[in-house]
Every structure is written in structure tokens, then in C-alpha cells.
């Protein structure tokens, strides 16, 4: 494992998300109120460029550093789990303003009460793992 490589990617990611203000609860609420283009611009430009970049990487036959062709593991075919799980996620996202990347980044910005959110998120993931077979997927 190349520790420095991933550490640098993480540092870059953390800086970008803070400077973009995407880690701000205020920006998330503004987005859900459709009162600013800011968040849509970030996600929209990231996805548009992402589509082009992944297409080019696959099309050109590029190989990753492991030597295998560029390929993203497809998600399982299902409907209900994405809609139900996604909606539950959305409730939490708008309430606390922190998705699973920003919650760590925000600890770095000095918001230590975020550790409570992280602990609760680990608990939520744990409970999902316990209930998994009883939930519709």
C-alpha cells in the first residue's frame, strides 16, 4: 500500500471540499431550497467531466497502475434499496449537513462535535448490517 499517495489524495480532497464550501450545512440547505446554483454547479461539473474522463480512459484502453483495464464495479441491479436507502441518507444529510466524506474533513476544521455524528454513522452502518436480511432490497 502506498501510504503517501493516498494521504496526499485525501489532503487534496479535504482542501477542495472546504474551499468549495460543499462541507457547509448552509450550502446543503441552500441547495435543497433551490436558492443557489453553487452546489448544482459543483456536482454538475464534476459529473459532466467525470463522464468524459471515464469514457476517455476506457475508450483509450488505458490501464490502471495495477495493470488492469479501467473498470468501475457496477452496482447490483435493484430499485428499492437505492430509493429507500438514498432517501434515508437524504434525511440525515439535510439534518446534519454532513455526508461520509465531509464528516471527517469537518473534524479537521476543528468541529469536534462531529465525532458524535461519525460515531452515530458507524452505529447506523452496523445496524444496517444486522438488519440487512430483513430489509427489502
Amino acid at each position, binding site marked *: *500500500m502506498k*501510504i503517501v499517495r*493516498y*494521504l496526499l489524495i*485525501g*489532503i*487534496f*480532497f*479535504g*482542501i*477542495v471540499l472546504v*474551499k*468549495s464550501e460543499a*462541507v457547509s450545512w*448552509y*450550502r446543503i*440547505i*441552500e441547495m*435543497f*431550497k433551490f436558492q443557489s446554483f*453553487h452546489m448544482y*454547479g*459543483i456536482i454538475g*461539473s*464534476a459529473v459532466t467531466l*467525470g463522464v468524459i474522463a471515464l469514457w476517455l*480512459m476506457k475508450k483509450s484502453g488505458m490501464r490502471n497502475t*495495477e495493470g488492469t483495464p*479501467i473498470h*468501475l464495479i457496477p*452496482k447490483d441491479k435493484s*430499485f428499492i434499496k*437505492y430509493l429507500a436507502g438514498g432517501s*434515508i*441518507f*437524504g434525511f*440525515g*444529510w*439535510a439534518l*446534519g*449537513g*454532513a455526508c*461520509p466524506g465531509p464528516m*471527517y474533513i469537518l473534524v479537521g476544521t*476543528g*468541529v469536534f462535535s*462531529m465525532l*458524535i*455524528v461519525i460515531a*452515530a454513522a*458507524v*452505529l*447506523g*452502518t*452496523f445496524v*444496517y*448490517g*444486522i438488519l*440487512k436480511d430483513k*430489509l427489502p432490497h
Partner: protein
Amino acid sequence: MDFLLKPWPWYVSGPLITLVMVILVYFGKSFGMSSNLRTLCSIGGAGKYSDFFRYDWKAYRWNLIVVLGAIIGGFIAVTFLSDGSPIALNPKTVSDLQELGFQNAGASILPPEIYSWDAVFSLKGIAILVGAGFLVGFGTRYAGGCTSGHAISGLSNLQWPSLIAVIGFFIGGLIMTHFLLPLIFGT
């Protein structure tokens, strides 16, 4: 260097997020932050309770290193790369939030009304943080990804499941923002 210290516009930030995803894909990994929550469960011994946590989490250590970096990145951004500019929110958002009891929206990254220790050490305050975290952790695993895995990576890969998940993010987020937040914070 002034532009580095000011908030970055969306057309700079968005492409830089794409860059993060592309670099991870180039290294044979994938951009998905929520997997770390599952990894943390596995490290904590959750495999004793569910097969879901019985896997080789060591193969995902790289992602925990990304998390460590992200924490450092957050620190660097606020300490060395910030001029303390407030967030330039729509004035309508600021006044809407004021009606819900949030003063000076945009003056800090997060609302002290939710995240200050004063707020946290009340029954309602702790319930909000625990509730928000739990919903995010539960929902993201149920949906098989979060904003990075579905909204950025999944949509970039033109995956239908990710589009459904993102629609779900918005269903939940819109209901919370428009109907539940006024009930939770309104007076």
C-alpha cells in the same frame, strides 16, 4: 495567491473533485467515502454479529488513509488557505434560516445552533447529531454508496442505480429541509 484564500467557485471545485475520482480510478481504486464506515465496523469486531462485516477489510486500508488525509486537508484549508470570508449564501436562505432560529447563516462553516458544545449538551441537540449520523450511516449502506460513490463516481459511470440513489438523496433532503426542519427548529 489571493484567489487561493477566497472561497473557490463551483467551476474550479467541481473539476477538482473529478480529478480526485480519476486519480483513484487510475490507481485501481474507487471513489467512495462511505465504505470507511463499514470498514470501521469490521475493525471494531462487527463480524461477530453479521456476515456483512466479515470481509478482508485490510484491502480497504488505503481508503482509511484517504480519510486521514481528508482530516489533515480540512485543517490545512481553514488554517492556511482561508481569509475568513463568510459563505456568500443567497440572502433568502439567510432570512429563511433566521426564521428557524439560525443567526448569521454563512458566518461559519457549520451552524453553532447545531454544532456548538452548548447546543450539543442538550437532549434535543444530542438527538439531532446522533439522528443525523445514524440516518446517514444506515442510509448510505442500504443504498450502497453516498455522495462520492453514487452522485460523483456512479453518475460519471452512467449507472442507473446511482441515479435512483441520487433521486433518493433528494427525496429525503427535500422532505427534511421543507417539512421537518421547520418542525425541529421552528418555534
